[in-house]
């Protein structure tokens, strides 16, 4: 209770400070809360951007597709490189090197390849989500104790059983962590992609409001996007906790 009150106090203090500073400086640039709240209400009542739901829905679909692709490709590539010695030694280092490149540099070429529509956003979200998932699989496989695999084999476990009963539980912590990071990055990829250049989606609305200097609308849109991201992360952390309980 005390903790909650203390939290509330700091939020209130920050909002008050923001209000005061913004009014004193430049309310048009710094958008005080007193302007954001009506703008947010207007946005949610579908006044300022009547087609908001279709944009939100598009962004969600892009994220779902990008993440779905990142998970399937990440798991497939991760297990292929992790379980196959030669493949892992040949391609593992290349993968790690690519991961070190700031992903944004790929985005212009993705727009050239896939155009301004959803495809380039999905591709970028996929690209960002793919690496942490793949690397988590590789790290997870390295965590599997060879001794436990031997024990399982001694009790007659065939490869598929070893995979299911030893490898997956042994790597689950790492794997779920990677899947969660992958989701966060896929979300970032899609939204950054939309902001950098698109005709629809949350990012395009943000860009639109910003470009027209409709700063209160801009802040309101950012808040909605933030809610979307926090929502997906809360969902992911719930899944993570469940996975933990399952392995415990």
């Amino acid at each position, binding site marked *: 209770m005390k903790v909650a009150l203390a939290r509330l106090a700091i939020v209130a203090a920050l909002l008050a400070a923001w209000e005061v500073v913004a009014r004193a400086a430049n309310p048009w640039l710094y958008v005080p809360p007193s302007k954001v709240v009506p703008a947010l209400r207007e946005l949610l009542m579908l006044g300022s951007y009547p087609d908001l739901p279709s944009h939100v829905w598009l962004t969600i679909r892009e994220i779902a597709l990008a993440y779905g692709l990142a998970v399937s490709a990440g798991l497939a590539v991760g297990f292929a490189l992790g379980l196959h010695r030669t493949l892992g030694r040949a391609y593992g280092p290349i993968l790690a090197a690519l991961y070190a490149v700031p992903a944004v540099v790929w985005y212009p070429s993705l727009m050239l390849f896939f155009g301004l529509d959803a495809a380039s956003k999905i591709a970028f979200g996929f690209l960002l989500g793919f690496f942490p998932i793949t690397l988590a699989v590789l790290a997870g496989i390295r965590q599997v*104790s060879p*001794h*436990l695999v*031997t*024990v*399982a*084999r*001694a*009790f*007659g*476990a065939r490869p598929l*059983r070893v995979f299911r*009963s*030893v490898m997956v*539980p*042994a790597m689950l912590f790492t794997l779920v962590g990677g899947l969660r990071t992958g989701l966060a990055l896929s979300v970032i990829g899609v939204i950054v992609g939309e902001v950098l250049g698109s005709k629809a989606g949350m990012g395009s609305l943000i860009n639109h409001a910003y470009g027209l200097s409709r700063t209160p609308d801009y802040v309101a849109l950012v808040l909605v996007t933030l809610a979307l991201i926090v929502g997906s992360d809360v969902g992911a952390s719930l899944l993570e906790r469940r996975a933990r309980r399952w*392995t*415990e």
Partner: protein
Amino acid sequence: MTAAASEPLIVIEGVTKRYTTGATPVVALRDVSLTVAPGEFCTIIGPSGCGKSTLLGMVGGLVAVDAGRVIVEGAPVTRPDPRRVATVFQDPGLFPWRTTLENVEFGLEVRGASRDVRRRTALELLGPLGLRGFEDRYPRELSGGMRQRVAIGRALAIDTKILLMDEPFGALDEQTRMLMGEWLLEIWRRTKKTVIFVTHSLHEALALSSRVVVMTARPGRIKTVLDLPLPYPRAMESPELVDLRAKLWSEIREESLRAMQGL
């Protein structure tokens, strides 16, 4: 299959094993032959690196032979066969995400036994294992001795004729080790299993075995086989055992020295 009691259960014929990890191949075992009769408690003892574990791995189907063959119950061993052989390792190798019961059930699960059968078998074993009350504990919550008993339970649960034990008590303190030895003798006498037991400990070898096989330093070969047709429990201070101990020690000492002085 109704083999006569005298017929060997395990036949090891001229097996050899080479490992090529570094530049020069290492011969771990050279031309080892041994037969084990049903109901024996056969201990293999020898200096570190003499290939004891490799030999056990061959019987368990985990290590391929480079030459020779291993026959268990009349069939050549090519892969692990959990219907015939169960193994207990020095590192208990319990699955950390499984409870005591679930670990004991593992082999039955692989075999495809029903949930009921698995649970019943595991629960019946907990009493003799001294693990009642620890059914739902995870390995990290158990002591070293208890963990090893869970591992032994997992091996007993699949009810094989043969039990391979690779230094099962090697990581335990001496008191626990002696108690575990007594406990294992009880299990062995009650279940009439055939045991091959690898150890470094003279005491363990003399207290438990019906036969002791002494191996040479690398490349591992059989140096001596010592029969111990003595009743249990054994008074380790009896003149007979003190004599045997001296004899066994002189055999092992020579090999351990050779192993120490460099391979």
